[in-house]
């Protein structure tokens, strides 16, 4: 809480850190235009948003993540790379406690988002997930209309007045750069959209509840080249206002879209740092081998 209060004046409203429900009234008064102080951006860039320390995760008795320590800075795109099965998805799914639904999954260590202890059993996961949106490998819109997909989250969480929901849906779809393509068929089934449109719809759905962080697990791996491009453009825009963590298999994509890269191997973090450094002058031989495609 202290960490956050010191900075609260400089933090744009929409990236307000996660607070326990009791904190709401205090910070509700803080309002400022997110774009009013661009000069603050570089300064913010180094503030830690997610802090992982000595983190271990298991599925049953299989250890998927082994003593991992990593800081993920705010308002940047962090890419997780590494060969299949190295634990990238597992880590991502622990950040918003998605692994709660895997009966065999358990973990140990520290995982904080600002001042919130994510792993604590008393953490309100509903609240957590409202602040930490997730986008999956395969676009997974609900078999409902486009509108209903986006409205799903707000309907669950927010008290809305008439008209507000429509406004929110439009805003989210615009933000996800898919509004123009769907505005004439908001009530058509979402499954009728193309893969790329579906994936952008999923992003719209995720940002409609106003998260601070977006987790993306290989968001482009099921998409055609054109759709991939559209999503990459979108990431480029969104990073202004969200902290983004993405898993990718495509090294070129990682180098194109991310500010920072973390390389995992067999459940351990091998190397992390600014993307350019990791790709051009990796410190570890294994990283070098991997980014050059020698394995994986």
């Amino acid at each position, binding site marked *: 809480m202290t960490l956050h209060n010191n900075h609260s004046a400089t933090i744009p*409203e*929409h990236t307000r850190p996660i607070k326990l*429900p009791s904190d*709401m009234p205090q910070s*509700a008064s803080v*309002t400022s235009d*997110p774009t009013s102080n661009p000069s603050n951006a570089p300064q913010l860039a180094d503030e830690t948003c997610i802090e992982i320390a000595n983190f271990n995760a298991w599925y049953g008795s299989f250890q998927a993540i082994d003593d991992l320590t990593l800081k993920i800075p705010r308002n940047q795109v962090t890419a997780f790379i590494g060969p299949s099965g190295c634990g990238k998805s597992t880590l991502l799914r622990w950040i918003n406690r998605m692994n709660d639904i895997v009966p065999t999954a358990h973990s140990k260590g520290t995982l904080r988002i600002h001042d919130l202890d994510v792993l604590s059993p008393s953490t*309100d996961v*509903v*609240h957590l997930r409202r602040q930490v949106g997730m986008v999956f490998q395969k676009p997974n819109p609900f078999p409902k209309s486009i509108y209903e997909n986006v409205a799903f989250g*707000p309907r*669950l*969480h*927010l*008290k*809305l007045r008439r008209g*507000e*929901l429509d*406004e*929110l849906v*439009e*805003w989210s779809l*615009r*933000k996800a750069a898919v509004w123009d393509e769907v505005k004439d068929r908001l009530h058509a089934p979402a499954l009728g959209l193309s893969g790329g449109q579906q994936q952008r719809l999923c992003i719209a759905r995720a940002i409609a509840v*106003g998260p601070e962080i977006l987790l993306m697990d290989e968001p482009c791996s099921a998409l055609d080249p054109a759709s991939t491009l559209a999503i990459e453009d979108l990431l480029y825009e969104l990073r202004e206002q969200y902290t983004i963590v993405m898993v990718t298999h495509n090294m070129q994509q990682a180098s194109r879209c991310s500010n920072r890269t973390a390389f995992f191997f067999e459940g351990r973090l091998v190397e992390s740092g600014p993307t350019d450094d990791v790709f051009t002058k990796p410190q570890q031989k294994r990283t070098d081998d991997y980014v050059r495609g020698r394995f994986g």
Partner: protein
Amino acid sequence: MSRPAALENRQFRSTGAGVLQERLMVAVLAMCALATVGITVGIIVMLVGQSWNFFNSEHVSFKEFFTGTEWTALQSKNIDDAKFGILPLLSGTFRVTAIAMLIALPSGLITAVYLSEFASKKVRAVLKPTLEVIAGIPTVVLGYFAVLVIGPSLQWLTDGGFDAFNATSAGIAVGILCLPMVCSLSEDALHAVPRALREGAYGLGCTPFETSVKVVIPAALSGIVSAFLLAFSRAVGETMVVALAAGTQATYTMDPRTQSQTMTGFIVEMIKSENEYGTVQYFSLYGVAIALFVITFGMTLIGQLVRRRYRESYS
């Protein structure tokens, strides 16, 4: 693009009601699930409680029950004449079940192999619904079929060598009844064999026959075995067909041409005759029921265990 008011000024719904609803639903659903355990407990309590009246009687001994070759619960008015050896009923059940299995297992498995390995879409489109229709036929209908078509045909074929009610016609009808079950469960098992194994076999130059018999069936064997066990317990527990077609005389023999009262057949007869409710003869039906329950429960349990092991071996 400025954020909509709804997000600028998020008014969260209170989670209290949601949490309460969630708890309530979990409790209700858990009750549902526990109720299923309650049913099993109920069955066991009921069977044990009622058959206590039987096994506890001075006229019944466990030794006689398991080894006696005469069962005269329906025939003896006088409890002193009653003989309670379950072997005749077991032999009746065995005869009917054996005949049923002789029919259902091979043809069910072969049909399953055909469906999963060879059949074209069109054939499947005909064959699967046909089997589903057979699976949906009420057992009374098959009993009727056994009495009216199978029995007379057998008598005609053998020139009266069969009784009017006999184990064979009941067995055939039960076999027809079990066939779709064997078939669909075996097909599931065959289906679960990874395509990669089939391709591996074809890639080595196997003919379709060799692929099925040497690779696919062995790989699906535990699933097939558990299908067989399930079919077996279904046949053992089948009631209406035997009540109509197998006859009501409990004889300790292996002759499939004669009447053969099965365990279920006996229970139905005893219930229908309401023979001396409260007498040892009446309660003997619970003794038979508990034996029946143990047999079928054991079968399905083994089937489940087989199935479980095999699931693990693939994942």
